[in-house]
């Protein structure tokens, strides 16, 4: 069995082997939510590498008599363990499969040395190993198969953070049972990016999808540094019901050394819509699918990927429940209205034609 699981071949039974992060990406893809392409490395990859090396013997040595009260000792020994893992040879088949998978990802985007994100993916949310490991283990803009391999080992090594190691010692857990999966996912280089809400944030209208968009990375939209373009899309008809193009004086772009930098946009670009109508509709479609998948209003981050072909280049970066309007339940508008007093409703409609004005 290959140690690589592409997101699109994920199914629920794999969750213990690929961890929560990979599982959620696989589920999203399965629900028609286009996350950036990538794959997970099964937990077996770490086991195979551990078993084909002398890591177990080294672990036994370094963990023997570990005094969890002695922070110096903990920190020294854990650092050594992590160093061992970061440099240990990866089992040959695993290494080949990982390399091949990375190359495939490069081909998919028609880019050599495709930048990817490498993240740890915890295998069980309840397990303390999981919650300690991988807390901050995300490596962005990783380029080339060797770098990917290094990042994978660093993710594995994060199983032996000081905190996680001490916890296991105190609880009497066997270090040999700890598991770790790693996710490798394409880094999106956005032409445009932003956020979308599956309701109108200004009035809570559930029939609308509000999209905020700017050139380049979406950081500026989230932080408020950039006034984004604004679009309102009817959720049912998927028609653009309102649009406001703002002056986007800056944009966040990828620098030559893989950092995100803020640059000024020229006048014409600043005033041009950052999305085409087709893209706006595709994002709305995606937001609607996310809301359906999660069963409640969503607040999503998305991007238009530069490397993907037009039509399939809208990707979902993150989805979380919308919290502001979802919290308060609104009273019914039709309070007391029943079929018998429909006439009073018609009368009041005619007498107070508030909404007959063109919006």
């Amino acid at each position: 069995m290959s140690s690589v699981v592409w997101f699109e071949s994920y199914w629920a039974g794999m969750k213990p082997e690929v961890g929560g992060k990979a599982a959620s990406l696989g589920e999203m893809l399965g629900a028609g939510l286009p996350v950036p392409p990538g794959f997970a490395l099964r937990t077996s990859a770490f086991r195979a590498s551990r078993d084909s090396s002398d890591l177990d013997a080294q672990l036994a040595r370094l963990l023997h008599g570990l005094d969890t009260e002695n922070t110096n000792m903990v920190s020294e020994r854990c650092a050594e363990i992590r160093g061992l893992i970061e440099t240990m040879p990866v089992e040959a088949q695993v290494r080949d499969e990982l390399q091949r998978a990375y190359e495939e990802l490069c081909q998919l985007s028609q880019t050599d040395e495709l930048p990817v994100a490498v993240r740890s993916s915890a295998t069980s949310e309840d397990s303390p190993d999981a919650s300690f490991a991988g807390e901050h283990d995300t490596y962005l803009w990783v380029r080339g198969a060797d770098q990917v391999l290094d990042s994978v080992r660093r993710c594995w090594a994060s199983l032996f953070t000081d905190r996680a190691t001490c916890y296991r010692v105190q609880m009497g857990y066997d270090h040999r049972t700890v598991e770790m999966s790693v996710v490798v996912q394409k880094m999106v280089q956005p032409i445009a990016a932003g956020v979308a809400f599956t309701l109108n944030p200004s009035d809570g209208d559930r029939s609308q999808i509000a999209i905020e968009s700017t050139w380049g990375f979406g950081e500026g939209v989230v932080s408020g540094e950039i006034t984004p373009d604004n679009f309102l899309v009817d959720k049912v008809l998927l028609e653009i019901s309102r649009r406001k193009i703002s002056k986007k004086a800056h944009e966040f772009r990828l620098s030559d050394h893989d950092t995100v930098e803020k640059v000024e946009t020229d006048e014409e670009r600043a005033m041009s819509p950052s999305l085409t109508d087709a893209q706006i509709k595709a994002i709305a479609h995606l937001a609607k699918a996310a809301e359906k998948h999660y069963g409640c209003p969503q607040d999503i981050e998305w991007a238009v990927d530069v490397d993907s072909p037009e039509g399939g280049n809208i990707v979902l970066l993150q989805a979380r429940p919308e919290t502001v309007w979802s919290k308060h339940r609104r009273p019914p508008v039709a309070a007391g209205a029943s079929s018998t007093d429909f006439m009073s409703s018609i009368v009041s409609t005619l007498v107070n034609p508030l909404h007959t004005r063109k919006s």
Partner: protein
Amino acid sequence: MADRFPSPFDIATPEGAEGWQDMYTYPSLFSEQRRGFEDSMFWFQDGVHWPNVLTPWDATFYEFAIASLSQYNTRHLQVPPANGIAFRILNGFGYLSPVPADPNTIEERAANFTDRAGHYFMNWDSLYDQWMVKIRTLVGELESLEFATLPELEDADDVVKSGAGLGTGYKIQDNYHRLISLGLKLWNYHFEFLNLGYAAYLDFFMFCKTVFPSIPDLAIAKMVAGVDVDLFRPDDELKRLARKAVESGVAEAFSAGDVEATCQILKGSSEGQSWIASFQESAEPWFNFSTGSGFYHQDKIWIENVEVPFEFIRNYINMLNEGQDLSRPVDAIRAERDRVVTEYTALLENPEDQEAFQGKLGLARTVFPYVENHNFYVEHWSHSVIWRKMRQLGQVFVKEGFWSEADDIFYLKRTEVEDALWDYYVAWATPEAPAGPGYWPKIIADRKRICEALAKVKPSPGLGVPPEVVTEPFTVMLWGITSDSVKSWLGGGEATEGELRGMAASPGVVEGLARVVLSPAQLSEIQQGEILVAPLTTPSWAPIFGKIQATVTDSGGMMSHAAIVCREYGLPAVTGTGFATSNITTGQRIRVDGTNGIVTLLD
């Protein structure tokens, strides 16, 4: 920008149109006696129904229609906030002004309205069935009116010995009186249901706007719109005939040139004869269909101008030969409508709201077939018969030397036709020469000249002081007149920054070359893929909708017939722009955003 339109009393008579007032009934003119009232009101030109100069007789339906509308609002149903609509004619064009009810009476009116309108809503289906019977009976009565030259000697049996005691001279005058009263009856029937239909629609509309503040107007229209609609039947019949021609192998006949040549070929084969029989079957009643709004005697009626439906059929045959599928995907339309309703319903969080939504939608759907269909039965079918009968009468006068063409009769006021008939009758009875041949030709010639002079001056879209906010619901829905459109009229209709705004009548955004069509006669100029720009469109233009990408009109609201038809045909449309035909030229590149009601001039 000016904050008001000119007073009706400050509008000059166009050069050469002096004396135009004599063409119309005195109560339809602005006058010194009523100046106080008239100057206090805001008037808008009704370009939706009457975009052209009214000839004297054609003003009849203008008066009948608006008076009937008023009568229902004011005297029958007591629509709580709205009385009728005052109407006038100025320089040949019709101007309307909604008259609000006294705010102090609204409560009392509401009680009456609830009782009376409620009865209609509760018994809609049976009353509507009854309406269909009434309207068909009325058409039958109109058809039975005959206008023929009076006989040298009355028939011995039918007239004399039968003891009827009445002659054909009485009959011809009686028939004309009956035609006039049937016309008024027709317009009474027209408004028996119409505003109730709009009221129920409006109620659903406003509920949607309350629960979903940003819901597009057309989403609401889409949920209510019917799938099988009589108004689209004439177009369906054309397609059916085109298919029959292709399937029975007689399509070739349509490339023969004119109608006569085509018919000659068709008559030569049994398949062709069967096709002709099929055409005649469709024609009654479905080709009693006007190429215009149905309000002008000049509008061509398919059944009397067979070249019009033939041209459309030829067009459809070409499309079929190119492998196009002409059928409307009725099941898909139905499924899409269901999807839209289901999804909006699911977005409502409260069961009470869901129930109200379903209830209001149900009522709107019950009433809406009338809103969609009446147009065929009244403006098209019945009016077609009336125009036909009037021409028959006109021809009688031509024979007697009163005037030279049957259509000249439309340059007489409806009361003047009675005078002419009386003249004819007396001269026949006496016998002696009628006075008419020495009297009418000059008047008719003068009036034709006046109408031409009037037509040269574009009417002001409004008169008097507009209200700050246009709230009268029917004005907004039927005529597309909103606070915004009034403002843009006051701006003189200059296409500010190359943009025109109107009603977002049918969704979609397209770019293309404009084709400005000012009369139905120009329809054949339209090229594949162009954008139709017209004062208004009528349902009978549907057959060219397969050729065009979008529609822009000067007049019309969300519920105007143009809007209904464009939605039905999935054609982006912006209606009620006010000035599209004067700001856009044929061949100009424009973008039509039917979702937001914006037309952008690109060059």
